[in-house]
């Protein structure tokens, strides 16, 4: 057999019916994560066609997008923002009930953002195909799974058949050598990658992140990197599973147990790309040159080092339009800009290590006057672990808000929004116009940069606090 990439191995392992010139492949899906926003219409189709959910055991339903994150003492007190959102949440409960799905709903200690709970439960595993009606499904690729976002029609396809019709994408190797400098995190790395290849640099491709800078990352950092593959336009992002991966998964509730564990690890070890495997495209990057990164425009590719001057873009009208929307001047660094809101959270940076990173900066300091800072754990489990470490107290004492788990200000569907015209430094993944609220101006950054900016009251290099 010829040499294969990680992607090719996972792909060929799941082909039920091979693709032809006229028809796409039928690809088997091992894990389907679903949430309240992109499923109602899919369940309606099942109902109309009188079809059951084929594999409830491979379907993982939760609620995260339009759920409130305001602290409550009992889930009965939960005030959902708006009748539509409340209806969507109720509909999710009805759908799961009717189709026999085990919903991780309110009050469940495992509830959280789709891409945070899959790994946490050990449901995300190397070599699996994983889909979800959410583009940041690429997160799960950090485990060497082939994971990608799908639309609602396809959610219906997977519910009904556990399969998808797919054309095989191309492969892109992003090889990151060197060691990341102190004070630079996985978020800075992926922002730098998107800055380099552009927001359409990965279109049509599955990325495999490789090289020593990648293999030395812990699992949470790998998830941050893979999470934003979609921001480079890629179908998915993957990292070869190794001992770091296996250590993370060992003993999790849905990980293989006992003798099955050893068999699984042996199989997983065989997944890495063969030495002479060929990629359709290759990009290389040196991690040792990285610095903390911040976005200045309205897409994640408009990104610079925190102390670098904002470029001017020449006569590119889209570029000018972005700077006008952001009210950012070219020629000056982003550190010149005052901050109104800081958001720590999302499936990109809402895990325990992210909250620890922010808490390290906040410890013994105060959020600047006039800045609202929201810290939203990615799952209830992250929340509990952070509280066990006393991080909530550091956050509250600094004057920030400590919330229940959910997507929150990443997408602003649950009432957590950035007011019109205000500047937000956010650890989420999209700085699109209006993403965090109508007229909101978003600067994407790492948790350390976001926390430092909250303390300083303006966009700030986090290294001043180290």
């Amino acid at each position, binding site marked *: 057999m010829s040499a294969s990439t990680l992607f090719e191995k996972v792909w060929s392992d799941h082909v039920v019916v091979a693709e032809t010139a006229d028809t796409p492949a039928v690809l088997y899906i091992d894990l389907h994560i679903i949430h309240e926003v992109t499923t109602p219409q899919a369940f309606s189709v099942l109902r109309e066609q009188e079809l059951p959910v084929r594999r409830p055991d491979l379907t993982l339903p939760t609620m995260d997008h339009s759920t409130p994150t305001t602290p409550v003492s009992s889930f009965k007190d939960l005030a959902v923002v708006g009748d539509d959102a409340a209806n969507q949440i109720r509909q999710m409960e009805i759908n799961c009930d009717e189709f026999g799905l085990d919903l991780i709903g309110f009050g469940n200690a495992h509830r959280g953002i789709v891409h945070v709970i899959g790994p946490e439960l050990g449901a995300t595993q190397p070599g699996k195909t994983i889909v979800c009606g959410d583009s940041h499904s690429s997160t799960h690729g950090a485990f060497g799974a082939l994971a990608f976002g799908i639309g609602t029609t396809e959610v219906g396809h997977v519910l009904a058949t556990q399969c998808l019709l797919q054309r095989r994408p191309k492969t892109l190797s992003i090889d990151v050598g060197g060691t990341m400098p102190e004070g630079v995190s996985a978020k800075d790395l992926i922002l730098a990658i998107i800055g380099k290849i552009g927001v*359409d640099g990965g279109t049509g491709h599955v990325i495999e992140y490789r090289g020593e800078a990648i293999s030395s990352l812990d699992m949470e950092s790998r998830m941050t990197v893979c999470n934003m593959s979609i921001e480079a336009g890629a179908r998915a992002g993957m990292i070869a599973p190794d001992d770091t991966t296996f250590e993370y998964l060992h003993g999790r509730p849905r990980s293989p147990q006992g003798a099955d564990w050893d068999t699984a690890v042996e*199989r997983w070890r065989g997944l890495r790309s063969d030495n002479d495997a060929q990629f359709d495209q290759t990009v290389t990057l040196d991690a040792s040159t990285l610095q903390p990164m911040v976005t200045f425009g309205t897409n994640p590719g408009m990104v610079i080092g925190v102390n670098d001057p904002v470029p001017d873009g020449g006569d590119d009208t889209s570029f000018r339009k972005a700077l006008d929307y952001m009210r950012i001047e070219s020629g000056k660094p982003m550190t010149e800009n005052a901050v109104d809101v800081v958001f720590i959270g999302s499936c990109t940076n809402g895990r325990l290590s992210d909250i620890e990173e922010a808490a390290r900066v906040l410890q013994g300091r105060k959020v600047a006057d006039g800045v609202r800072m929201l810290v939203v754990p990615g799952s209830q489990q992250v929340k509990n672990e952070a509280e066990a470490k006393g991080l909530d107290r550091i956050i509250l004492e600094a004057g920030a808000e400590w919330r229940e788990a959910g997507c929150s200000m990443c997408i602003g569907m649950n009432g957590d929004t950035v007011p019109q015209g205000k500047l937000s430094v956010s650890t989420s993944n999209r700085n699109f116009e209006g993403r965090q609220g109508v*007229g909101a101006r978003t600067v994407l950054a790492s948790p350390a940069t976001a926390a430092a900016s909250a303390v300083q009251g303006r966009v700030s290099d986090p290294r001043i606090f180290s």
Partner: protein
Amino acid sequence: MTGVRHISSRTVVLPTKDIDTDQIIAARFLTTTSRDGLGESLFYDLRYRADGGDNPEFPLNDPEARGCTVLVAGNNFGCGSSREHAPCALLDYGFRAIISTEIADIFRNNALKNGLVPVVVDTETHRWLLDNPGAEVNIDVQDATVALPDGRKTRFPIDGFAKHCLLEGIDQLGFLRQHMDAITNFEENRPWTP
């Protein structure tokens, strides 16, 4: 989904690059549980001013744009979210095809499944279309061509299967379900189980 064979229309031009799904339909309109009425929310924050009035500078509000079913957009249209609400909102508003130099993967997939034709053209044709808003174009799905008013024709790439489904208005779930035996067979014979 109903079949699509020909689309003849004048174009509306949105020259901006990287128009993302949040601009196409903002997250606050996603709390719906059906597909109806999404067109009202299409490009909401660009179409309307803060006071609720129409933004006269937005190309869709140009009286000339009324009834146009082909949207010409800047490079990398539809990047961002997997929300199928985006192509559905464009369809509900009345668009039948999107022309750009690049269309984001998931958006293109979602568009095809709902009967919205994604047309990717070369930069020269694109430049001409951007410079000539309101031009009458003819899209032939069978031939996978777009014809400009001067008679020039450009081919656009489209997957054979996706084309077949578009032409015939075929529901892909039906096609998938023809493979149920193969799926069961796969499940029973795979060397490991998820």
